[in-house]
């Protein structure tokens, strides 16, 4: 039989996976270090898209520069949120930190509508990315290949960042036991802020890259965050590799099911979640 | 023939990553009275209590309580079987009143008799504070409440983790008096740093170091034990 469809479907699945991953990765590192579930992570992604739009048409006119600026901006916004809204809450119950990020997502939702209007926005793909590799009657757009690679790149670089650098050493120290980290003289407050910057940056990068292919409109974040939550839950909260694997599992299986059993669409992700809760409640890589 | 061996710990091992907190602890406590566990910081005293009370799961070994294996049971089950404890850092429902704290503890195993709560409040001389939220009380009183809560679960063994930590002299005396009273009713195992207290009120002293029991005996025996002096009392 002709394997092209399956292969192509997996290819597409990997692309979906990296969209999920671009949100889930931020969620994971932020939770891993700060023990905060950042409800606004998906809205960060959307924000990245909008900012890229503004930078592209408003200032630079350059695709790549806009993406860089947008990612940085979202990172900085992340820092601001962490500094002004979350720092005061670290001493108290975790649920209030989650609530805070929830409130932030509500605000950003409407803010995008007020600032960029209600119409969807997008930016054109640069010529260099517009083309696609054609194999056996199927076009493999450079853009999608790029997105898959960027997902991988982010996974690799975050892993290196955390396992091979001084900063990473401090992060790892803070990862499980902040009190101990403090006791050995690590300035956890700076670690927290920098981690939030990283989380914001990654989301911003994802969003600004996405907007060239999927226009953004107010409220889209709401739909993405649910999937991202499910990914991190399946992964086991705070497990980077787990989150990457989970993104791929969800992305690819969603894609394949569309080919063979389209009817379970929309439900599939929840079925996978329920299943993994029953089989591995602690998550793919989580330990009890 | 074991006449009421209260608790027996066999070859208990607990690791945190590469750090070995308990390295094959064996001990057996027989009879009433106060048994004190002493040892330098990081000796594994608190870890031992946490493992016994189910707060931590051991990597190896077993724990027998009055002949019954309680290894790795959930904390609330262990409490119901008859072991209650207090914590180094006071642990209570600080937003609730003294009365409510004791009441909650007295409510387990379904049955509840009002008199029990009242009696405990009386015997701990806490009636006057019964409707104050715990966080409003001074440290010493909070410690009393904590012990009162532990007693309210009708335990057969009481574990006290540094009961006098962070108390001023008067408060210490208060708590020590209380412990002496309790000793008459119930066997007590206590982790304590204040050597005067330990050697005054203990029936038996167990010395731990680097996750192992290195000596045990009467206060006098321990006090005269060269090995202990070297590695612990540092004399």
């Amino acid at each position, binding site marked *: 039989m002709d394997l*092209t*469809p399956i292969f*192509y*479907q997996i*290819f*597409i*699945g990997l*692309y*979906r996976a990296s*969209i999920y991953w671009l949100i889930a990765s931020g969620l994971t590192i932020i939770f891993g270090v700060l023990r905060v579930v950042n409800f606004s992570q998906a809205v960060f992604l959307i924000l990245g898209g909008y900012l890229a739009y503004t930078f592209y048409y408003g200032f630079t006119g350059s695709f790549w520069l806009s993406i860089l600026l947008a990612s940085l901006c979202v990172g900085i916004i992340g820092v601001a949120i962490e500094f002004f809204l979350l720092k005061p809450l670290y001493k108290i119950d975790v649920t209030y930190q989650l609530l805070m990020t929830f409130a932030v997502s509500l605000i950003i939702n*409407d803010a995008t*509508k007020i600032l960029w*209007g*209600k*119409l*969807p926005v*997008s930016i054109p*793909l640069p010529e260099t990315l517009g083309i*696609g590799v*054609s194999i056996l*009657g*199927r*076009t493999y*757009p450079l*853009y*999608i290949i790029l997105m898959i690679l960027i997902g991988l790149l982010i996974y690799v670089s975050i892993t290196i960042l955390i396992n091979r650098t001084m900063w990473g050493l401090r992060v790892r120290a803070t990862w499980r036991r902040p009190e101990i980290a403090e006791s050995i003289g690590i300035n956890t407050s700076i670690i927290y802020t920098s981690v939030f910057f990283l989380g914001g940056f990654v989301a911003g990068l994802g969003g600004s890259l*996405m907007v060239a*292919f*999927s*226009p*953004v*409109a*107010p*409220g*889209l974040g*709401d*739909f*993405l965050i649910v999937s991202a939550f499910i990914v991190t839950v399946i992964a086991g909260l705070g497990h980077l590799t787990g989150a990457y694997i989970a993104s791929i599992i969800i992305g690819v299986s*969603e*894609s394949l099911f*569309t*080919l063979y059993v*389209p*009817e379970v*669409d*929309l439900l599939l992700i929840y079925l996978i979640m329920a299943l993994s809760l029953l089989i591995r409640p602690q998550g793919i890589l989580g330990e009890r | 023939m074991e006449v009421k061996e209260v608790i027996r710990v066999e070859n208990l091992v607990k690791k945190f990553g590469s750090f070995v907190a308990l390295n094959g602890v064996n001990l057996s406590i027989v009879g009433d009275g106060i048994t004190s566990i002493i040892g330098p910081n990081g000796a594994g005293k608190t870890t031992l209590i946490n493992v016994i009370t189910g707060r931590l799961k051991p990597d190896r070994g077993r724990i027998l309580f009055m002949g019954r294996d309680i290894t790795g049971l959930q904390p609330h089950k262990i409490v119901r079987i008859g072991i209650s404890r207090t914590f180094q850092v006071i642990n209570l429902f600080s937003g609730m009143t003294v009365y409510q704290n004791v009441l909650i503890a007295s409510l387990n195993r379904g049955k509840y008799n009002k008199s029990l709560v009242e009696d405990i409040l009386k015997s701990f001389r806490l009636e006057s504070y019964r409707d104050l939220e715990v966080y409003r009380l001074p440290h010493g009183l909070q410690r009393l409440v904590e012990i009162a809560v532990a007693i309210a679960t009708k335990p057969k063994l009481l574990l006290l983790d540094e009961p006098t930590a962070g108390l001023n002299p008067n408060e210490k005396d208060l708590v020590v008096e209380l412990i002496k009273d309790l000793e008459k009713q119930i066997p007590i195992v206590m982790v304590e740093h204040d050597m005067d207290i330990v050697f005054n009120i203990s029936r038996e002293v167990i010395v731990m170091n680097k996750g192992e029991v290195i000596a045990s005996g009467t206060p006098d025996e321990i006090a005269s034990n060269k090995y202990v002096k070297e590695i612990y009392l540092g004399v």
Partner: protein
Amino acid sequence: MVSEERRSLLKMIGAGVAGLVVGIAGGLALAPEKVREIPKTTTITQTITKTETPVAKLPKDTIRIGVLGIRSGTWATYGTLIEQGARLAMEEINAAGGILGSKIELSIRDEAADVVKQARELVEQEKVDFLVGVDSSGNAMKLGPIMPELNRIVIFTHAATHRVNEELVYKQGIKHIFRISVPVYQDGILAAWIAKDLPVRKWAGINPDYEYGRVSWDFFKTTLKALRPDAEFVSEQWNPSPGTTDFTKWISAIMATDAEGLFTTNWAVEAITFHRQAMELGFYKKIKAVFNPMGYSMDVAYGLGKDYPKLEHGMWVSGRYVWFYPPTDVNKRFVDACVKRWGRLPAYSTETTYSAIYMIKAAIEKVGTLDLDALIKAMENMVLITPAGVRWIRPQDHQAVYEIPYGKISGETINVGGDVPVLTDVRAVPAFLYYRSPPDYKMPIG
């Protein structure tokens, strides 16, 4: 003043005739006997009697109209389109002396914030006399049943579920509900009428996974199968809506089949996203014809502009009204006014809401009172000359009957506050051929 009214009146008549001509050109000959007469007779007479017998002034000098639309969330832009139509009509009418001397006032609300609460407040607190608008079919189904209790007329101008006219009005007999926009018939059935003549046999569908998408696809299939028995439906895909930003997996799933044609009712941001991604994946190298019933609603037309793909057998798009059809004065005037006022070509829900306000005007002017039953009577069977052409309000289920064309994306664009693709090969099938009608609401085939 008077002379002005005369002139505008003459225009109206002229437009009416023009509208008729188009209607006939559209093939009225095919329509059943009874139906054919209505436009011929009533249009003209109505318009004339209206001014010949001057009516007494209304009891109140302001007529308040509540306007409902989605103003928050992903579809928030649609609330604005409705508002634009309502405002334009209000400004025109008030400038021309209002309705029998009474000025129109609008109160605009977000239907996404509990449509029932909004409607109740509009009627019971702000004492509005009419309700118009409503984007979401779900909200229409919520609002409809309480209209008798509110004792007001509501004119739906976007919500398209056939259940509004078929169930609420016809079966449950809620006379307070009218709809001036087309039901899903246009999106599913009409598409099939055009699709049947194309050299395309194998069809696939990617539709939003809710009633609108489901029903339209269903209508499309049943009709096409009947008109073109050799038609095959090789793949059905459903994308969540709102909220789909990535269509790739459905697109590639259909590329795995041997489909030659595609039917999709995706609209708004999702239509834009869909076509962009389809192009990226080389989908249109494979697919020869596409039907996208909402593909020519202005947000999509502007959104895709020059990039709107042009296919071998046609990228067939429509709306519940398209700005260039029919080529009547009424329509031209409306389009000019919109461009002048809002800087862009009118979207369909702008036209429908605009016409709804004029429908209210016509009804009041006909009966000269605000008496509900009289107004309902007046609106039933009414024939209106509107920018979208001649509208007949079907008395049995209060559904406006009028025709909408489909057209092919030509590849050309014109620039009116942005690039808008121009359509070629515009096809108008008389509404009577694709409207389901009472009593049985059977699929109208042959």
